[in-house]
Each structure stands twice: as C-alpha cells, then as structure tokens.
C-alpha cells in the first residue's frame, strides 16, 4: 500500500515532506503540491497522513486485496492530543478509535551521545554496539544462542 495526495486538498505546506521517515514525500515541481515520488518504497507509517492539516493524503490498498471500498482514515487533533481512526471494512462495517498523541516535541528526548562516556579501545574493537548491553535494558550479558542448538542446514 502507498500514500497518495488529493491535489485539490493539498496546499503545498510541506508538513508531509517534513515528517516522512522514508523521505519520499516531495513537493512537485510542476504544481507545487505534495507527491509521493516512490510509492513502492512507502512503508505505510501513516506519518504524512496524520500530519496533513488538510486531510489531503490517503493510503491506497493494492488492487488485489482491497478493491471493494475499504478505507482507513485518520484525524489528528494536536490541540486535543488525540488521534482518531475510522476503519471501514469492505462489508460496510465501520469502527472508530481514539488514541492519545505520544509525539514528543521536536529536538527533545534525543540522547546526548556527545556528553556520554568515550568508549575505550577494547569497546571500540568489540562486536558490541555502543552502550550494549545496558542500553538494551538487559541485566548482565547479552543472550546468546549456542551453536549446537542450530538446526542443520544452510544459513543465509
């Protein structure tokens, strides 16, 4: 599935371009409206759908499984702190959900890595990533799977 833009609703504000984690929402050079430049690479985060102040973005189901009028639409009301969903099934059943917004303000809650402890030579050469295993909230050692427990066969 991928997002698409209702051109008459879009006003080219750029919120979707700003929020898209895949960086595939762009401003079209011919009409200065938002456009999904690479629908195949859309991960359906719904970030742009929620961020659009004009509800100009929708998600299209693939024709092989969603040809009969299903719909999943969302309304984000920042001032209320709510995200409302309306799910419409192909048989006409509808379900409404309301959830809280959990988005944090931009730029806050980013770990300040520069202020953290410098890894020593041993840690740099180790196969572990920075702050592992404490960063994973694991007490003690990383869990490991003994090799002899592997199923026989070819592993890719």
């Amino acid at each position, binding site marked *: 599935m991928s997002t698409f833009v209702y051109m008459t*609703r879009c006003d080219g504000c*750029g919120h979707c371009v*700003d929020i898209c984690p895949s960086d595939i929402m762009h401003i079209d050079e011919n009409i200065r409206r938002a456009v999904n430049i690479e629908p195949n690479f859309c991960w359906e985060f719904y970030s742009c759908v929620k961020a659009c*102040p004009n509800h100009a973005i929708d998600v299209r189901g693939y024709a092989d499984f969603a040809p009969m009028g299903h719909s999943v639409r*969302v*309304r984000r*009301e920042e001032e209320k702190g*709510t995200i409302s969903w309306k799910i419409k099934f192909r048989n006409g059943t509808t379900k409404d959900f309301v959830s809280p917004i959990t988005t944090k303000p931009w730029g806050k809650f980013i770990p300040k890595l520069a202020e953290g402890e410098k890894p020593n030579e041993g840690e740099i050469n180790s196969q572990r990533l920075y702050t592992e295993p404490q960063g994973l909230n694991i007490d003690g050692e990383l869990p490991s799977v003994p090799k002899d427990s592997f199923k026989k066969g070819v592993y890719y």
Partner: protein
Amino acid sequence: MITVNPFAILAENIPSLFLQVFVIVMVTLVIIGTLVDIIHKKNVKYFFNNAKKAKLSATKDLSVGERTGVVLKTIVNDIATTAELGAGKRRVAHLLGMYGTILFWIASVVMIFCYTSNDTATPNMWPIMWHVGAVMTCLGGFWFWLFLRVDVLAEAYPWYRIIKADLFVLALLACSTFGLAWSYTQSLNLENRWDDKVFLTLYIISNLILFGGVYWSKFAHMFYKPGAAIQKNLADADGSRDNLPPLADAPKQFGLGIKREEPKHY
C-alpha cells in the same frame, strides 16, 4: 499617476475596440486552458464520482436550505479568507495577492470597457483600485516568492531557482509589476523616447503568458479550490466526512495536547 486611467491614454493611440477584443481573447484563453486542463487531468470527473461515492456513506440527507447554508458558510469562511492556510504568513500573503488580483482585474475590465472613449471621464476610484490592486498583488506575491515558498522556506533553495510551478505566480507578478511601471512611465510623458513603450510591451507579454499558459500553470486552481472546499464542507455536514473519523469528543484523559510545528526540518 494613481488617479489616471492608463487605458484611456493608451486608447488615444490604439482603438479602444482593440483593447476590448484583447480582454475577450484573454478570457477565452482562460476558458480553453481550463477546459483542456480538466480533460487532461480528468479531475472534475474524478471529483463528481467521488462526491457520488461519498453520498452513499452519508448519514444525513441535507435539505436545499442546509446545503445553501453550508455553501454560503464555505464562501465566507473558507473561500473568501482562504481558511485552509491556517493562521499565518502564507494566508496573509495569499489574501493580499488574491484580493489585489481581483481588484486589478475588475478595475482593468471596467476601465477598458467603460472609460476608454474620448468623451467619458474615468471616476477616480477605478484607477485607484487598479493601482492599489497591483500593489497588493506585488506585496503578497513577492513576499510569497522571496520568503514563503516551500522551496525557499523549508528546502533552502535560492529564491531565483525557477521551476514550472512558478509560472503562475511569476506571470501574475510580472503583470502587476509591469502594469505599475507602465502606468508610471506613461505619467512621465516620455513622448516616444526609446523606453516609452517598453513596460507596455512587457505588460502585454506577461498577460499573454498568464492567460495563455493556464494549461501549464496553476491558474485553474482558483476554480478547483472553491469547489473542493464546498464538497469538503458538504461531506462534513452530511456525515460522510470523506470517511474521516469524527472529531474526538473525550480528549481530557489524553493530556494537554501539543503544538504543531512549522515544517522546517527537511
């Protein structure tokens, strides 16, 4: 300069019928461009199909009175004040450009059709409206062009990078700017100096680009946008809401909410 009808002075050298035919040709170009655009994009067909589909999921049958009410409210709230742009600089710039252009065009048509013959004096209000409209368009348009365009504001492209989407705003700005410059040079009475007709020529060319380029530019958005706003509000009123969920009604448990940020992070 501001109280002088520039078309009346022009009509001393060119038959006023020629000016009137020029206006009619421009209107015809807009109609043809919009129709070709509609045929090419199939947007109106899509729009009506979508409205028909939305009607099926309506929860309420709207009476004629209710529909009229919604349409009137849309005209006042959404179309006349471009509410979709929210409260901000883009909206102010758009309103300046929109009303400036409307004033400029209305005054142009009235002055060309009613006040270009030798025996009629132009009331002061029309030239003033023409000049004020042009200034408003320039203010709103250049503000948008130099600072508020998403390419400049958010994508950090330089203001002089021109793309096809700029055809409309640039042609509009060219019309107003060259119109004002032509009016000014006319007031100087240059009497066939080399630069006497430069701005008039540029004004005519920019009008040809603006009205002749409808198919390639964003010109037709001024017809589509009001239609889309009316359809949106009708869908809100009849309960279909384009399949969108209703407004959340129990938000208190979810805390204080957040403030939307400017899209400036990409």
